[in-house]
């Protein structure tokens, strides 16, 4: 117990739920192997798709002798979830399932995920550990601005903050002026939302004459969309809080798969419940530690819907070495991009995160943007729409035109191709559940 207390950082008291964060590596691996065997056994016996995939590969659950053997198991993809819509991957009968969530699904059917009571408890515990990792504790007042509903963000953060013993304000997303009033009047000390929504909130507070830096707010736990290191800098300098990155996905459990500690150097994965691998996104071959590739996750304890080697499409790397915070949980680098968000424009690879970084290079701009791709006479056109903020707005045409030019130059510098920059009115870019829709591809496939 003494060692554990000495390892915890800052003034936050040690949370008993955080004990697994500090398991010695050998014990953690043993725990993972035991859990992996039983979850694969469960998937085999209860889910026809998992069983037939394993049979195709000539594998049975009993073949798993070590953690390395996981590489022989088949992958599960988002397409499998769609193809088995709605309940095809459930491993529990409905009477054992206490909760369903679903992804918003931009095209076609959503994907549906399920939880038994035990699953909800695991989810709550990893969210409690996530918040504790960010230095939150009982006594904190947490404004939960993630959307409540089918989206996992709202309820996931809610249960976690409540489990921690903090006071939760279940304000959900939207109604920015009310968010600011509540933040100020209720003495909020921590907030959960998407990073882009929080930045919007900070701007609006400025318009209303509320200085976030003067409020008790000290931490933000931000997730549900990829964000860059420059975005973090902008958030922290504009609001005076520490901004933590939290990672998760509904297919695995929701938020609470991995989170940053106060060292903010990679996200600790809650490995006792989620087993991480990094694979080559093209070939699916396992990559060694430290190499960048696609994150693949296996749920080690999820009963209602076990996920075997789920292809997340998120590009990251497992970081070698031990974090100074003392957690033995391995870290992954923050997600900058997804394997499926790469755009090819006139033969050049473009990632939305590059556009975000280019915008942040320009003084006074905020990364409220949307990329619109069109095709004119066989040539790809890329337009970047940028919402005008009070900070960058001027009453003089020349100032706005020079700003437009600086953004355009910065984009060309980062992307290597010229993009049309259009300044648009605030809040014209579509957002769903606080997540900004970054890309609209209007190019039609030429016959």
């Amino acid at each position, binding site marked *: 117990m003494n060692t554990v207390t000495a390892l915890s950082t800052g003034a936050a008291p040690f949370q008993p739920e955080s004990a697994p964060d500090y398991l010695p590596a050998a014990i953690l691996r043993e725990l993972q192997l035991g859990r992996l065997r039983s979850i694969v056994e469960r998937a085999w016996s209860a889910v026809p798709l998992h069983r037939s995939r394993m049979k195709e590969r000539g594998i049975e659950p009993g073949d798993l002798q070590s953690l390395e053997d996981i590489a022989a198991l088949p992958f599960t993809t988002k397409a499998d979830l769609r193809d088995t819509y709605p309940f095809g991957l459930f491993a529990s009968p409905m009477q054992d399932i206490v909760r369903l969530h679903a992804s918003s699904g931009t095209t076609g059917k959503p994907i549906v995920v399920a939880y038994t009571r035990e699953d909800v408890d695991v989810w709550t515990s990893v969210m409690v550990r996530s918040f504790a990792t960010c230095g939150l504790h009982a006594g904190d007042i947490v404004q939960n601005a993630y959307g409540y509903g089918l989206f996992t963000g709202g309820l996931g953060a809610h249960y976690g903050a409540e489990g921690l013993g903090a006071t939760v304000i279940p304000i959900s997303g939207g109604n920015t*002026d009310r968010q600011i009033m509540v933040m100020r009047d209720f003495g909020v000390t921590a907030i959960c939302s998407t990073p882009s929504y929080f930045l919007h909130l900070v701007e609006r507070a400025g*318009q209303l004459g509320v200085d976030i830096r003067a409020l008790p707010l000290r931490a933000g736990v931000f997730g549900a969309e990829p964000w860059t290191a420059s975005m973090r800098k902008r958030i922290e300098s504009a609001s005076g809080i520490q901004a933590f990155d939290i990672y998760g996905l509904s297919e695995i459990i929701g938020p609470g798969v991995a989170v940053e500690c106060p060292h903010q150097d990679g996200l600790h994965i809650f490995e006792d419940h989620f087993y991480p691998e990094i694979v080559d996104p093209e070939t699916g071959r396992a990559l060694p530690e430290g190499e960048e590739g696609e994150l693949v996750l296996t749920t080690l304890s999820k009963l209602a819907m076990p996920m075997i080697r789920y292809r997340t499409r998120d590009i990251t790397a497992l970081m070698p070495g031990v974090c100074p915070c003392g957690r033995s949980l391995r870290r992954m680098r923050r997600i900058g991009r997804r394997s499926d968000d790469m755009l090819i424009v006139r033969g050049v690879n473009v990632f939305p995160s590059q556009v975000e970084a280019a915008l942040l290079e320009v003084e006074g701009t905020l990364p409220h943007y949307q990329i619109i791709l069109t095709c004119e006479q066989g040539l790809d056109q890329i337009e970047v729409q940028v919402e*005008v*903020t*009070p900070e960058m*707005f*001027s*009453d*003089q*045409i020349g100032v*706005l*035109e020079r700003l437009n030019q600086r953004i355009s130059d910065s984009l060309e510098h980062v992307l290597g191709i010229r993009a049309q920059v*259009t*300044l*648009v*009115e*605030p*809040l*014209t870019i579509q957002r769903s559940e606080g997540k900004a829709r970054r890309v609209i591809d209007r190019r039609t496939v030429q016959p």
Partner: protein
Amino acid sequence: MKLHQLSVFSENKPGHVVAPCRLLAQEGIDIRALSLADTERFGILRMIVSDWRRAKDLLEQSGSVVKITEVLAVEVPDHPGGLADVLEAFIGTPINIEYMYAFPFVRGEKAVLIFRFDQPDAAIERLQERGFQVLSIGALEER
């Protein structure tokens, strides 16, 4: 002497200028002077209104980006040379005019020029030295 001008960002698309104007009309706010500066892709609607603080709040609540700038209203006789006389007052001074717009009044044979100077205080001094009348918001509303 200095007036508070509201500038509102607008996309150069059909219907985009009407929304802020309609909003102010519904709230009983009078637009005293107005100019629209536009480029191919966007425009800036500049206005002097009866209650600039309330107008700013209303426009911001409706989602517009608003900037407040100090401008001067100068009254000149509405005859040829009225504008040139004012402009000449600044030749050889370090004071620059960023932009201006003008409108005549039916009564009184006077015109009012709205100036955005880079140094409004120095400009007021210069104008008064030369005998031009710089209008307060009250004086502008009486016209």
